[in-house]
Structure formats: structure tokens, C-alpha cells
């Protein structure tokens, strides 16, 4: 057990796995000598050497594809995609190649690769460097997608991802890199398992990444008794935990960082509604960002992803009125 920053937990997870398994190699842009644009590979080159730890050219398609090929041949590549948007030039290798290799080879090949990518808004990187883009990986049987919410899950999920025999994407909320937390080195996550961050009986709140912390604060502020489910794995998500919670609370809210339309939360709401319709006491809904590109200006960007006060207001409204509260941009008459 130790206290460390989120990004140090990532370094620790990678190093711990690399010590145990010589098949693991690690590459990406400026991850070796410079130790990562976000310092998520401090000391890795030094400890594991230039054969296993490499800087790549600016070639996301090239090095992502190289990871796919290396994984097929028995290595366990971990790659870093600096900003998730860069997969817009390389999505093919993950969705159309890696995710289909086991199927096409009838199980004779697998692609045990891990793709780490930083995601999310809040740091003033503008509309091409601030999205979360989980939906790019939806509807792709064969892929697994994870997102940690604190140092412990950053550590535990990454170790699980690296050990997993299939391609796994770990989306790291960039805004959390500097956050501190305790890390128990003994905990390796189970992919597909959510984690309860709070328990209660009035409402179930499902969140992911930085929104878990936002939701946690909102629960505290609002004083409601809520189950807070940190989903951790987006695909395949933990239906059992969410369904059990909603069976108990009869209410569901999803808190999402991405725009309303077509985010991962729609799957949760749609599935839970289908399965537990008669158990629900009030309409399930999503608290999300608006359907806009992410603005640069600090004041605007701070209103982009749901804040604790947004969430608090909407939780309280929902419990009081048993209906769906409007998002702030409708309440404040700005858009609608």
C-alpha cells in the first residue's frame, strides 16, 4: 500500500507486470526517453531497456498495427495513444483487425494487447484533444474497454488489462493524472466487474472515470442514500451489479462526461429499462455534457461536463418530483 498520483499508479502497474512477464513490451510516442508526455512511464525505459521500451514515429496506424502483429506472435504489447482522438487515424487496426483476429483464426490466434489512451475534458486542450470517445469502440465484439476513476483502479485495471488475453483499451481521464490516492499493490481488477463507491437505497447512480468523483461529491452534497456504481469496464459492462442495484433502489441515473446523444449511458439506460421496467419507480435518465464540441475557454469548459452541483440538483429534483430534470442549458435558457 502506498499513496501516489494516478499517473504513478499507471507506471507502477506497468512496471509490476513487466517484471513478472518478459513478453510485455511498451511503446508509443515519446514514452521511452522522455518518459511520456504525461509522465506515465517514468523509469520504465531505465528499468526495462530499449528492446522492450520504445519511442515510435508519429504513426498511430503503424505502431498500433505493429502491436497487433506482435501480440499475435506471443508478445504482450502495451501501447500509449497520447490523446484518444489520434485513434481517428488508426481505428481500423483495433476495431477491424485486432477485435476480429480470434474469430477469423478460430481461436488459434489471440491479440493480448493493451491500448492506453488519455481522454477527457477540463484541461483546456480544445475540441480536438478533450473528448472521451468511448463510443468508437462500442458494438465491437472482441474488444474490452476500461476506464479507471482513481489511483487504485488505474493500477488494478491496467494490470488486469495487460494480463487479459484479448485486446483491451484503457481510457485514462487525463484530468486525474495528478490526483493522489492510496494504492494496494495486491489488487488486480476483474475485467467486467463494477465497483460500488457508495451504497444506499434511494437511487442508483452509474458513472465512469472523473464522473465517479463528481457523482460522489453530489451524493454527499445532496444527502441522498445512493448506490454509486463505478462501472470501470464499459465493455462488457457489469449488468449484474447494475441490475441488482436498481432492483434495490428502483431508480437509475447515469452520469456521463460525453455529449448526451449516443454515449455509453444510453446502453445502460436502455438495457436496464428493458430488464427492470416494472421495478422502476421513476424514469431513468442521463446527466451528460451537451451536444457540442468542447469549448476551450475555461468558463465554458467548466460547464461542459456535469459538475457536482449539476448532479446534485438533478438528483434532488428526480427524487422529489419523480420526473426527469432538465439539463442546465435548458434551465438557464441558453440552448434547448
Amino acid at each position, binding site marked *: 500500500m502506498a499513496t501516489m498520483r494516478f499517473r504513478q499508479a499507471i507506471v507502477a502497474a506497468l512496471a509490476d507486470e513487466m517484471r513478472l512477464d518478459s513478453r510485455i513490451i511498451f511503446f508509443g510516442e515519446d514514452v521511452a526517453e522522455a518518459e511520456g508526455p504525461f509522465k506515465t512511464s517514468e523509469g520504465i525505459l531505465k528499468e526495462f531497456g530499449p528492446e522492450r521500451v520504445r519511442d515510435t514515429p508519429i504513426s498511430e496506424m*503503424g505502431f498500433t*498495427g505493429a502491436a497487433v502483429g506482435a501480440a*499475435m506472435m506471443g508478445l504482450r504489447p502495451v501501447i500509449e495513444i497520447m490523446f484518444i482522438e489520434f485513434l481517428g487515424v488508426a481505428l481500423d487496426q483495433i476495431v477491424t483487425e485486432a477485435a476480429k483476429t480470434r474469430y477469423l483464426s*478460430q*481461436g488459434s490466434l489471440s491479440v493480448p494487447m493493451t491500448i492506453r489512451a488519455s481522454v477527457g475534458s477540463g484541461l483546456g486542450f480544445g475540441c480536438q484533444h478533450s473528448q472521451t470517445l468511448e463510443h468508437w469502440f462500442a458494438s465491437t465484439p*472482441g474488444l474490452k474497454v476500461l476506464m479507471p476513476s482513481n489511483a487504485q483502479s488505474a493500477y488494478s485495471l491496467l494490470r488486469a488489462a495487460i494480463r487479459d488475453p484479448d485486446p483491451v483499451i484503457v481510457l485514462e481521464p487525463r484530468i486525474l493524472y495528478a490526483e493522489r490516492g492510496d494504492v494496494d499493490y495486491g489488487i488486480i481488477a476483474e475485467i467486467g466487474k463494477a465497483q460500488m463507491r457508495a451504497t444506499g437505497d434511494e437511487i442508483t447512480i452509474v458513472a465512469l472515470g472523473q464522473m465517479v468523483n463528481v457523482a460522489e461529491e453530489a451524493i454527499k452534497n445532496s444527502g441522498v442514500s445512493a448506490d454509486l456504481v463505478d462501472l470501470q469496464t464499459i465493455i462488457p459492462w457489469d449488468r449484474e451489479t447494475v441490475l441488482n442495484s436498481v432492483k434495490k433502489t428502483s431508480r437509475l441515473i447515469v452520469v456521463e462526461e460525453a455529449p448526451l446523444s449516443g454515449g455509453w449511458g444510453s446502453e445502460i439506460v436502455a438495457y436496464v429499462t428493458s430488464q427492470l421496467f416494472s421495478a422502476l419507480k421513476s424514469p431513468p435518465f442521463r446527466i451528460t455534457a451537451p451536444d457540442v464540441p468542447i469549448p476551450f475557454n475555461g468558463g465554458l469548459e467548466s460547464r461542459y461536463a456535469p459538475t457536482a452541483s449539476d448532479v446534485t440538483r438533478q438528483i434532488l429534483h428526480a427524487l422529489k418530483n419523480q420526473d426527469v430534470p432538465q439539463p442546465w442549458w435548458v434551465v438557464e435558457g441558453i440552448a434547448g
Partner: protein
Amino acid sequence: MTTSLERRNSLYGNDLACYERMVEIREFEKITNALFAEGSIRGTTHLAVGQEALTLGISSTLKPNDVVAATYRSHAIGLALGLSPESVLAEIMGKATGCCGGVGGSMHLCDTTVGLLPTSAIIGAGIPVAAGAALAFQVQKTDQIALALFGDGATNIGAFHEGLNLAAIWKLPVIFICDNNVYGEYSRIEKTTPIEDLHIRAESYAMPHMSLDGMDIHAVRSGLTDAINRARTGGGPTLIEAKTYRFSGHSRADQALYRPEGELKEWQKKDPLLVTEKDLIKRNLITRNEIESMKENMVSELTAVAKKVANDPEPELSAMFSNIWTPSKVAI
């Protein structure tokens, strides 16, 4: 039953066996074409007539534990590497006995026992994948080689550029073979590509490169051997441009009517089967009569295969739900 590996091993140092395999490919494609025309094959096919010398040159020079990343146009490379006509035809026909259990289809052959990675239907995708396989060999310190086989048209896609650059900078044991068969789909190369000799693109990566006659198995072997030697001794990748010709249309029912008058005829003089026959006859390894009866035998064998495969079982419904994910386990 002969395994893929046995069929592969039979090729080494045996020019006659290689020739026979070339005949197999040629006759196999005729049958495929006929089956497609009569509606017995769904979807699409991309015939590899004209690739016989190139693919046999590759398969009789690479070792069976070297790996190949190829494309949708993979019947020839599959058979050359050792896959049986049964397993290839069965895959094309979606049978449970196909090399991918019938879930892949003609664009997705795979047999890891002879190094054929699942072929990709996305242009260029196999190029970085081959580089990655070579990266594994480099890290594992084996003496294996990875080879990417792709078309002339594929040299215009980003993955080609990125894959070659990466392989060069990491000095990976990978060989890139561009099968320049003059056409990408229905477009003659000069319509899409401002240069004629594609291998010079390797200069952008300070990568050794060469052009060779892809219709002549000896030329292929000799060029490839140089590249393999370089790769195995840490000299890094090579780009080989094999000049060939696509004797068939692009896919499905394409008649290739867009070809300039006389072009096909001109290239038919260099038909890889003709070239090899001449060579073998000159070397007294076979006679014209033996060739004729070899071809006849091949036709009847393959006809029998086609008959058998037509009655092979379809995959179970469960096949479409298998081999997608492995349950995650916390174990190393």
C-alpha cells in the same frame, strides 16, 4: 490426410512439387470461378491467377515458421503455403471444414501451422501487422521472418507508409512484397500512382529495395533470399516489387474489359506456368506429356474435392458465437 505442414515441406528444394502446386492454384481458381458463376459461392472472390510463381517463390523460400500477412486475394498464397484445396475451397464456400470454420469466407484465410495470419480485407492493414510480427521475432530473438504481401494499389495507403517507416527505424526482420499486377480494382496503375517503379518508395525510408520478375519463381526466390539473409542478420526490412499481371478480373464477375487491347495477350507470354514449364522441360525434369497428365490429374482431383466440399457440413449456429472473447482470468 496430408497436413498443411507436410504440403509445405514437400516444396523445399523440389521444383517439380512447386510446379505442381502452381498447376493446383491455376486449376483451383478455374473451379472457384466456375462455382462463383453458377452461384455456389456467396459474396465475392478475388482470383489469384498470375500469382502462381510469386506465391510459390515465397512459400518455397520462407520457412514454415515464418509468417505471412496477406490480403483478400489469398487463394494462391494459401495453397502455396500449404493449405489444402479442401480447406481453402471449404472456407470459400462457408463450410465447417474450411480453414476458418466457414465464418471467414474467401477474403479471410488463415492457418497458423504454416504461418498464414488471418488475411485482411482492408487495404494495407497487413503491413503494420507484419512489422509487428517481426518486432516480436526481434524481441524474442528467434530467427523468424515476417512477410507482408500486398498489391500495387496498396502502396498509396497510409498504412504502407507508416508500416515501412516503422520497420526501417526499428530494423525489423520483415519483407514487404508488393505484387504489382498493374491494376487496383478497375484502375490501371498510372491512374492512381504517379510513378511506375513502386519499389523506389523504399528510398523514403532508407530501405533496401528491388524489383523482380514475379512471373519467374527463380527470380522471386533469389530476390527473396537476399532479403531474408539481410533480415536474419539484423539488416532490417526490404521492399520487393514483383512485376506480375492480374490475368483475371478484379473480383466476382469482373471481365476486366477496361484492359487496353492486346495487354493481356502480351502478358500471357510471360504466364508463370509457361515460364516454369519451359524451365523444367529444359532441365529435363518433366516432359510435355507428363505436364498434360499432371494437369489432367489435378483437374480430376480438384473436381473431386469440389464435389466433396459441396457436401461438407455447414457450421453450427454456435460457431458465430465462438472465439470472440476469452473470459478474463487473473492469471498469468
